[in-house]
């Protein structure tokens, strides 16, 4: 009796829920699961061979030359994550604080800081490549103009500077995003709290570190997690500025480039290795999924309800 009463409602719910679930399964769950499955097969070009258990995983983690490249790319991702944490999120927080305190020109700078974010990554990559051009680039030309010619470098050609140059370009491009998120968080801080603080201290440092920073914790959770995912999925900018091979000699290689090159081959150096490529994709996915969940859970704990 009860069930027949609810049939109409259930049907209605089903009609609303099934299409999105079907859509998600078809275009999200199915591709991910099939990529998982691909990683367990041997591949000849794009033709599937035998089921080989964990052989592909073993190759990318423990066998020459893949293992070396995996470690190299992975260590670069870690470096990128920490460097951007400082250059992008750290600077973003300071910028947000300055904008929030309404220093001179705050309105103009609020737009200016966010402007690069709307540019396409490819444009930013090419722009910075021109800035860093060894002969005519704005960076080297200005250094020479200031009599600091000895500091002029072939920035993107040396392993000592190439990765850092791309990181700086990325920070320039994206710094507006954490700034905006932090600024929104700061603007949500109730004015009573701030008035109370003003009675206690005049120190900006105390205000920033003891009041503002803990109260923007939800914003920090968002930007930290997104930066983590972004840093380990990094692809476009190193691709445009360093090329698919992570030039020079792998100094700008990151997991994204390495996965693409391995799975699909690079026209100028190697054929496709679809099995190891799929195994890499699975490992990258698992790593990001697990670590970003942990980060989110840990960071959520320090958020305070206002």
């Amino acid at each position: 009796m009860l069930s027949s009463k609810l049939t109409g409602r259930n049907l209605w719910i089903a009609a609303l829920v099934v299409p999105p679930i079907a859509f998600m399964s078809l275009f999200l769950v199915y591709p991910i699961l099939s990529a998982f499955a691909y990683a367990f097969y041997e591949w000849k070009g794009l033709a599937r061979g035998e089921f080989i258990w964990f052989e592909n995983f073993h190759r990318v983690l423990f066998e020459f030359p893949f293992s070396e490249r995996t470690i190299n790319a992975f260590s670069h991702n870690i470096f990128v994550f920490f460097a951007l944490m400082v250059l992008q999120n750290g600077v973003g927080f300071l910028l947000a604080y300055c904008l929030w305190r309404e220093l001179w020109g705050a309105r103009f700078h609020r737009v200016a800081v966010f402007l690069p974010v709307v540019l396409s990554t490819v444009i930013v990559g090419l722009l910075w490549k021109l800035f860093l051009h060894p002969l005519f680039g704005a960076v080297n030309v200005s250094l020479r103009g200031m009599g600091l010619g000895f500091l002029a470098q072939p920035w993107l050609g040396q392993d000592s500077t190439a990765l850092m140059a791309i990181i700086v370009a990325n920070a320039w491009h994206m710094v507006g995003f954490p700034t905006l998120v932090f600024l929104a968080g700061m603007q949500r801080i109730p004015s009573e709290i701030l008035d109370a603080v003003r009675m206690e201290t005049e120190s900006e440092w105390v205000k920033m570190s003891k009041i503002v920073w803990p109260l923007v914790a939800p914003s920090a959770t968002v930007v930290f997690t997104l930066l983590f995912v972004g840093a380990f999925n990094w692809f476009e900018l190193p691709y445009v500025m360093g090329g698919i091979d992570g030039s020079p000699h792998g100094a700008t290689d990151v997991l994204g480039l390495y996965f693409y090159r391995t799975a699909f081959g690079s026209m100028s150096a190697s054929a496709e290795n679809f099995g190891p490529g799929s195994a890499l994709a699975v490992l990258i996915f698992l790593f990001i999924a697990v670590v970003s969940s942990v980060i989110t859970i840990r960071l959520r704990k320090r958020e305070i309800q206002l």
Partner: protein
Amino acid sequence: MKNILLGATLTLATLLGQSASFAADLTFWTWRQEDKAEYEKFFKDFAKTNPGISIKFEAFEATSYNTVLSTALAGGKGPDLMMTRTYGGIESLAGAGYLMPLDKTKVPAVAGFSPAALASETMRSDKVLYAVPAASQTMLVVYNKEIFDKNGITEPKDWAEFIAACEKLKAAGLMPFANGTSTAWQNETIVSALTSSIMGKGFYEDLMAGKTDFNDPRFVTALGKLKEISAYFPDGFIGLDYASAQQLFTSGMAAMFAGGSFEIANFAKQNKDLKLGVFAAPGLKAEDEKLVGLFYDSGFAANAKTAQPEAAVKFLNYAASKEFGQVFANNLNNISAVPGVTFDSPLLAKVADLNKHSIAYMTLVNFRYGEPTGSNLIQAGVQKLLNGQATPAEVGKSMTDGLSAWYAPFKKK
């Protein structure tokens, strides 16, 4: 008797009638979007002699072409005809069984092609040809004739003359070379373009025979000379990318560009006033044979599962004909792989002439079949060498050791 004749005539007439009404729509895929107009002309010419067969041209972005193509073929949605890459690039398609195997009965004209051309489209495991070789590329030095004339420089006959010419250009305030090496594969092309004559035919033969490896003094000397001449590359060339290097040459700021013959068409398009010349970089002594690096970069293949195999084979026969080779060379400014083709452009004629004394562009031709590839190793090695982080001997050793992971003759005994 009359009846038989009549019968024969009738049969013949029906056959002819059939072939006249033979209609097929084929698709052709390539990565060379820029050649669309020319290919459509070729297809029209082909349709004149093969009425009823129309071919539709479709192009895809060059760097992802093999991925797009193999994905389409795997899904059964591939084209009937396609341009294929060579060496390892064709093995991934042929090995998966996507391509129609070709032989002398299907395409008789391939018998006349050079063994090196055929090897570029042959799978090593079954020794079967899978595509009609289309074009070769040559690694050499392209130079700006006006700059050479103005500074009284002629094509160098030995290494000392080569260096002297660079010195002269530098003293005149010009960049001797336009090359930059921040784009990884440019490190591989300059080795072949500048040092093939120093390595010499003997080295390549010994290498192929398994008698030597990249620790060979001939190879190490070649890399040493590369390092020496890189002093005449632009300031900060290790941070200079491929496109910027090309611009330095086309703008007339630099006198030479060490690279592939595929640059010629592009240079001419960028700056029509440029007067170009080509030469093979000399060996150490004037009597050393001057060699260029040679490889084949493309071919024409048919889908193994095409619905119109006869029509596809007809096109492949056309692609292997001298008639096609000639229009291909004249219209696309490429060195056709078809034997006996002549060249309208004196520059291409010169390249074809240089090809008579060549060794393979070996890291691409022979060492791209396993991981790490010879290309991976030489690109990284030369970047280190030019940046002062490795010696020529260390680069040779890293290549030999790296390749020993899969290249049987290098495996430690």
